[in-house]
């Protein structure tokens, strides 16, 4: 058992401003937003309370429901896709190939771009009259179709594609760093036992990369909740509601539609969603660290 530490007064004082900022800025504005979600505020805050009316309106809105569904599809595929592709890239680079650092730069490069740029590039490439479809058709394949961005059923996957293209590099770098930390002895031992390479990666390397990949996944997941810019740049939520996301719904209502009440209700639901998603995870960590401490 670790010794109970004495509180350090000067350190506490040094942290006071941060504490103040955290409480006032984060908790304060959050409370303010939640309060607004129970009012009928339009352009400016109002203090006429309407109970859960904004929430009722929110969940009767087809657009909001579509946005929740979309962010779920996008989130799962984006995080999953980035982790998978990132790991595969890292494994490939780990094979001591030639020009490794050049490849590393190329693969990581997309991550240095903003989502707006990524979105625009992919919008151009996938635009049927400008991009890949048009160029392939001009080469003679007249019936070639690649219209994901303008197709209701495929638009969300176009977003996933662009997102994975951007995010995989980050996972690759983190996974590669993790792989380099694995002792060469394990490789030698596995080789002597005649285990195939893919099996080494799946059964030996991957479990050891758990914490690194979890960190990468966490970073990506946080990006999913606030997904906004890539949607605006690529599809602007369309066609129809096909790529509408909660963050965009909230921004639209906050500014374009002058509806503070509905927007803050949406934001509150989003925060609640994050808490519900994170709480079991945190609890599991807490339980595990206690168990470790007791050992």
């Amino acid at each position, binding site marked *: 058992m670790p010794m109970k530490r004495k509180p350090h007064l000067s350190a506490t004082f040094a942290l006071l401003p941060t504490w103040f900022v955290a409480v006032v800025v984060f908790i304060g504005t959050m409370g303010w937003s939640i309060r607004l979600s129970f009012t009928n505020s*339009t*352009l*400016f*805050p*109002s*203090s*006429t309370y309407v109970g859960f009316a904004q929430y009722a309106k929110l969940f009767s809105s*087809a*657009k909001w429901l579509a946005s929740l569904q979309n962010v779920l599809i996008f989130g799962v595929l984006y995080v999953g896709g980035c982790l998978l592709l990132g790991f595969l890239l890292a494994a490939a680079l780990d094979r001591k190939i030639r020009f490794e650092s050049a490849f590393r730069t190329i693969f990581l490069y997309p991550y240095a771009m903003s989502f707006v740029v990524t979105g625009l590039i992919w*919008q151009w490439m996938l*635009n*049927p*009259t*400008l991009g890949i*479809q048009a160029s392939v058709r001009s080469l003679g394949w007249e019936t070639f179709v690649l*219209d994901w*961005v*303008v197709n*209701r059923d495929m638009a969300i996957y176009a977003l996933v594609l662009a997102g994975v293209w951007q995010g995989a590099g980050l996972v690759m770098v983190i996974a590669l760093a993790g792989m380099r930390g694995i002792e060469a002895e394990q490789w030698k031992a596995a080789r002597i036992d005649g285990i195939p390479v893919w099996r080494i990666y799946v059964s030996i390397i991957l479990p050891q990369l758990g914490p690194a990949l979890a960190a990468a996944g966490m970073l990506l997941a946080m990006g999913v909740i606030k997904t906004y810019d890539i949607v605006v740049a690529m*599809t*602007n939520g*369309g*066609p*129809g*509601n*096909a790529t509408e996301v909660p963050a965009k719904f909230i*921004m*639209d*209502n*906050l*500014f*374009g*539609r*002058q*509806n503070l009440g*509905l927007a803050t209700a949406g934001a509150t639901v989003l925060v609640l969603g994050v808490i519900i998603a994170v709480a079991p995870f945190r609890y599991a960590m807490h339980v595990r660290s206690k168990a470790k401490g007791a050992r």
Partner: protein
Amino acid sequence: MKSTMKLFLAGVVFAGMLAPTHAEDKPTIEIMSSWTSGGEAAALNIIKTEFEKRGGVWKDSSIAGFGAADAAFQNRIVAGDPPGAKQGVIGLAAADFVGQGLFNPIDDVAVAGKWADALPKSIYDLISYDGQVYLAPTGAHGESWVFYSKEAFEKAGIAEEPKTWDEFFSGLDKLKAAGIVPVAWGGQPWQQTKVFNMILLSQVGIDGFLKIYVDKDKSEASIEGVKKALDILGKLRGYVDDGAAGRNWNDATAMLITAKAGVQFMGDWAKGEFTVAGKEAGKDYGCMIVPESPGMVYIADSLWFPKTGNAGTNKAQKLLAEVVMDPAVQVEFSLRKGSVPMRADVDKSKLDVCAQKGLELMSAGNIVPDQAIVLTPQQVGLLDDFVDEYWSGGSNETASAAENFFAIFE
């Protein structure tokens, strides 16, 4: 509410007092607008030139995109640092700001310039709140226009402007057969809503249109009208190209300018793009009101004048209001922007054939207001959602969609 607002206003005033009081003799103003396309920028420049000629100092804060400019403006207002002027439509969007006492009235300018006599009464009523004038109108836009490329029409063998929807669709078929994109479709929700509205007007007439949007009347006749409008809108889906989703209006206009497409449904600001490209109305391109339409949908632009607490800016705001309503500026501005002057007493000879057609309809009173004038921003958004969902959903269930339409007003 009142007390928060007071506190907020006190903050605005306080911020104004803290602002450095330059001993500047020149009235300086920061103008926030979303007029960034070629024609729009040229039009804004007319106001700027005259304003500077009269001794003002102009600071441009243009932001591309109507929504983006609005969002930036709201942020600035809430932060207590509003720009001196903001371009915005006349209608319910401005009402909230005026109601909260955030705008400066420009009543004395309006009285001195006899605006009440120069402007149509309906417009004068729309820019006045509680008997005081707050907005300076820049120009009105007709939104019921079909622009067409004469070159494309010739290629397809269309001799004259179609008068009915049936003729119109057979014209589109001819364009398609000639290998031309029949409709240059602007694929953003707000553009689609405008097309829906112009078709609706052609189906229900002026009284029917006002009944739906002003009286929120949900009678059989209104539902039937919406249904017929949706039928026509749905039929148009077959005549747009693959790249239409999300397309900007000026990109669609460019398709007409290069004769890649036949027609475009758009407000008359599209003329500004033709003008910048050196195309002439009546010669290179034509303009017609949508088939079977008894009049046109209109929207009006204006400048808003937020309270900044700075005496120099107040002076500049009045000067700017004066400039905007100057008869010569109104005509020059309209020529660049493609709009119709707000003043009835201007020199009409310079206006092109389209603007003259528009002015005719307007002075005859055959106009109905755009949704932004009669609906709240929230309702406007829901209307956009409704039309976009119908258009992109590919549903042909127009009857049930027409029933859903009226949920916008709830």
